[in-house]
């Protein structure tokens, strides 16, 4: 299996604090992507980091990738109540067909 675990499974913080979610995977990858899912809704692509990149920023999001440890982290700074959602990491490997393989996700709750 390509994918591993995300931790924590659930995270609850106060508005304004930073939220960090971690993801581990098992095999070599071409890129790792983070998606957000509001309750019962579709998945929205947040950010993609290639296997030769170590860090990437997009607005309040910061993603790191450590291919030696096969792990990634997503940091959301200055959290807002609207950031409440589930966050999934997904890995992509171009071996034959390309596809995303998702982790279990982290349920993030931002308390106002």
């Amino acid at each position, binding site marked *: 299996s390509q994918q591993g675990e995300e931790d924590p499974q659930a995270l609850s913080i106060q508005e304004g604090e930073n939220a960090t979610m971690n993801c581990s995977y098992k095999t070599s990858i*071409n*890129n790792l*992507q983070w*998606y957000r899912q509001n309750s*019962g*809704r*579709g*998945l*929205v*692509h*947040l*950010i*993609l980091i*290639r296997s030769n990149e170590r860090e990437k920023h997009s607005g309040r999001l910061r993603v790191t990738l450590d291919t030696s440890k096969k792990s990634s982290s997503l940091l959301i700074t200055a959290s807002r109540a609207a950031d409440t959602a589930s966050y*999934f990491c*997904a890995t992509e490997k*171009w071996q*034959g*067909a*390309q*596809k*995303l*393989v*998702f*982790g*279990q*996700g982290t349920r993030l709750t931002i308390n106002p």
Partner: protein
Amino acid sequence: EPEVTQTPSHQVTQMGQEVILRCVPISNHLYFYWYRQILGQKVEFLVSFYNNEISEKSEIFDDQFSVERPDGSNFTLKIRSTKLEDSAMYFCASTGLRDRGRGYTFGSGTRLTVV
């Protein structure tokens, strides 16, 4: 912003009935996918479709499942004889050429309930 459109948003069907879930991917995308998410669980890959044929399928995608791109626009998932355990949210997704630095675009999903 281009969207992936899925219909219907909800479908309730009797066990043993056939269902067809419909998707309109983004027009200039090349790769099309179906994923499913059982309530409270992770998103699972079902099938990928490229150049008018299945490029990969998971163990979940057995003989009861089929996909079609009948008219160059729609992309459908058919479940021939639904089972209770097919109840899930089904997501269609599409993406373009490799390594364009962009992710996949997902539809809003079809919630399938088998009773």
